[in-house]
């Protein structure tokens, strides 16, 4: 099962190496790992997608919490969250295919961010399944390049505020 784990870490050199090293040393598999700054310049947030059974993911959570510069660890499984992935994708798009491709982009609420004679680059964000679906529909036209951020997530507030 996929778990999205969110870790608040001190914004210090070496923290990413600590976390990545722990995953490697304990043979845990990472699906994706995203690091970014937060509103507090002293803290960064790492969003890590891990695949494993409950026992493995519990160990991941505990071993993460053990790392000294890791301040807080949350496993979002079973919680209402908003999870998003951002992708930049370059698709082969000769002029005669463009209307067709444009309608697909619209359906997926994507945005064209670069255009060349034979290709289009599209920015698209959403839950992972949507990103995967878009990749699938683009395949017949020819995909030249894909860059993805990996999942980031935040808990939904309704429950917390009520």
């Amino acid at each position, binding site marked *: 099962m996929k778990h999205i784990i969110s870790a608040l*870490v*001190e914004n*210090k*050199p*070496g923290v990413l*190496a*600590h976390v990545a*090293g*722990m995953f490697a*040393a304990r043979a845990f598999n990472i699906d994706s790992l995203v690091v970014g700054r937060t509103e507090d310049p*002293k803290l960064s947030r790492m969003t890590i997608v891990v695949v494993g059974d409950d*026992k493995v993911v*519990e*160990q991941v959570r*505990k*071993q993460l*919490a*053990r*790392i*000294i*510069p*890791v*301040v*807080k660890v949350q496993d979002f499984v079973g919680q209402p969250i908003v999870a998003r992935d951002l992708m930049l994708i370059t698709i082969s798009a000769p002029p005669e295919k463009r209307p067709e491709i444009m309608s697909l982009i619209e359906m997926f609420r994507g945005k064209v961010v670069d255009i060349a004679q034979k290709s289009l680059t599209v920015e698209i964000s959403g839950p992972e399944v949507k990103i995967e679906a878009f990749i699938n529909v683009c395949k017949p036209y020819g995909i030249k390049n894909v860059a993805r951020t990996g999942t980031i997530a935040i808990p939904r507030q309704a429950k917390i505020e009520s």
Partner: protein
Amino acid sequence: MKSKSRSSAKSADKSTLKAGAQIIVDTLIEQGVDTMFGYTGGVVLPLFDRLYDAPIRFINPRHEQGGCHMADAYARVSGKVGVMVATSGPGACNLVTGLATAMMDSIPLVALTGQVRTELIGNDAFQEADTTGITRPVTKYNCIVKDVKDLARIIKEAFHIASTGRPGPVLIDIPVDVEVTKFNTDGPVEMELPGYRVRPKGNARQISLAAQAINKSNQPVLYVGGGVISANASDELRQLAQKAHLPVTMTLLGLGSFDQRTPESLDMLGMHGSAYANYAVQQCDLLIAIGARFDDRVTGKLATFAPKAKIIHIDIDPASISKNVHVDIPVVGDAKEILVELIKEVEFQDRKNWFKKIAEWKKKYPFRYDSTSSKIKPQYVVEEVCRQTKSEAIITTGVGQNQMWAAQFYKFTMPRQFISSGGLGTMGYGLPAAIGAQVAKPESVVIDIDGDHSFNMTMTELATAVEYNLPIKVCILNNGYMGMVRQWQELFYNKRYSKTYLANPDYASVARAMGAIGETVDNKADVPKVVKAMLAEKKPCVVDFRVEREENVWPMVPAGGSLDEMSGLDILESMA
């Protein structure tokens, strides 16, 4: 001066400015360091200059690995944080085995390493190594100090992290320019560790659940590890065992936490543990683990480990809970604090049948060897050392058969008495550990029960023992083999003794050449008097006992087997 140190730096009076090297020494003294270990080198020159007349006892090993083991054993024996200093590059790399040893056994250690100048880092400079990169997996925490203003704080944090929670080694890497940069050190030094919290107090409800389970149990076993020793909880352990009437088995690192002369002691469990401990664990209805981590050498095959037991696990490290074995009642916190509360809630139960069963196993399968043999049995040497030291010596070991015989045949009575590399199994640990132990306890008798191949690995440290006039005793159980591996080759590889034999030097001559006393013992009849003479000796001494060459350690749970599927019980019985 009350103002924050950073803002006052510019206006500071010259007398309040200190070079980084002086800040290091002053912070160490502030942390209560009066003894440290270390080896000098290019980039730690400024620090060693400040150490030249510092009020700190300094022990200089012959190799950084040895120094790291000394600091580690010093910590195990004294309960204080061990401190080791090394230079950059090779000096730092040589610490790795020592740090990993301390990490696996949760020993509080602070290692300081020099580093090349900040602007050279990453340039493959002379004696440069990525020390924090190399040591990250073998330390509880490490970091590099790139600004002298952070130096005092980071060293203070290092001692705090090393000695609290589940203890462990912390390494601080300090570039040489940081050692010479001056900084105004007025004002308090506050730690900044938002991600590090220690929660020693156990959950009251969990403690009550544990007490209820203990009170209800007919066949309980206490299974205790090094955590009881590092929490200084031996008194509480004894009180718990007496008040609730519980048998106690110990891991290798737990030896000493419970007096083995008392009838409740089941001695060591596990791969080479006692048959009675292993049977008791397999048949118990309640296993109470304290400061132990269900290591594979303890549990044997996990699927069949303690199959009838409900499991209580008391540990400071939440990550240890349910890591290998599912735990029914976890209690996270400091063993001492939890035991104090637990003792209040437990009641005495007779458990006559259970203790009767245990007594039968004990009678049937004690640790035994063929005492009628005309050769020197290694177990006999350990037994004789135990007898003559009245179970009161500090024992260090190498790794392998020598270590197991020391654990089986020396009867330990107090915590911090048995000093051995358990988790990592570091051959060569025994001699430097004896030196560190003797430095911590100058009045105690310190004996390294070693193997010939283990001793070979770090015997250069004999020169250190001689230099500092430390009266350590080394008993080499010399079978001329890498004994434990040879035992496995005999049992599982058709006696094909591949690379387990090395030509050894004459250890007595080596000892004498280094300025120590050296003796060789070939005759069984000489063992008692040589042990007696060794104990009377005021200089470091090495006794080379030429023991039975192909003696095996019994009983033995084959790797991956269940705890109660022990080999060698028939051999033990035949020697009765």
